[in-house]
């Protein structure tokens, strides 16, 4: 039976390979028909910035991996309202469309999962 899995992504896209590896894991969960969603929070919202180019520093482009999520039927993407605002990031100007959540909404989202995985 499909499990509800939330990926809680809180790491910068290029400071380590953690973010890219968690996204790969999310894509695999999607392939296996799990009910996957993603919450970007704290430094994880930096993954959503447009115009990334990992090739310049010899690594995969995390922004491009995010664009692949809908192809794996992972369309429920969320971002923390505070984390975006603290970093001058506009919800309208991100690499994929996300639903912006206040703290109480994030609490409900977390409580609704079978498993929560981190990057």
């Amino acid at each position: 039976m499909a499990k509800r899995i939330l990926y809680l992504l809180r790491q910068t896209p290029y400071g380590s390979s953690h973010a890219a590896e968690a996204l790969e894991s999310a894509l695999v969960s999607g392939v296996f028909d799990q009910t996957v969603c993603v919450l970007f929070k704290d430094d994880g919202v930096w993954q959503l910035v447009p115009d990334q180019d990992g090739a310049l520093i010899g690594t995969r482009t995390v922004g491009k991996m995010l664009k692949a999520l809908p192809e794996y039927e992972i369309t429920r993407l969320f971002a923390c309202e505070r984390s975006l605002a603290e970093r001058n990031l506009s919800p309208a100007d991100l690499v994929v469309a996300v639903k912006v959540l206040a703290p109480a909404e994030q609490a409900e989202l977390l409580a609704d999962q079978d498993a929560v995985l981190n990057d």
Partner: protein
Amino acid sequence: MSTLHLVNRPSALASCLETARDEDTILLLEDGVYAAAASDVDRPLHAIDVDVMARGLSRRLRENVTLASYEDFVRLVEDHQPVVSWR
């Protein structure tokens, strides 16, 4: 000679600023370049160009930020002493 401060993480900038003198140079690199887009610091900052571009920050830089190539980085190291790393 003045000091060169290297900031690798955005959260390290505050500690760096506590000890940097006005004549010192601050260079943001790796994840430190996020401070070039999100901090409210007014003093001049340098940021490694490829680290800025890779992260999609080119058009998000604040006005006090100057881009530096790796060649500029070498020149800054030559022209400063000591070099302090804030990781």
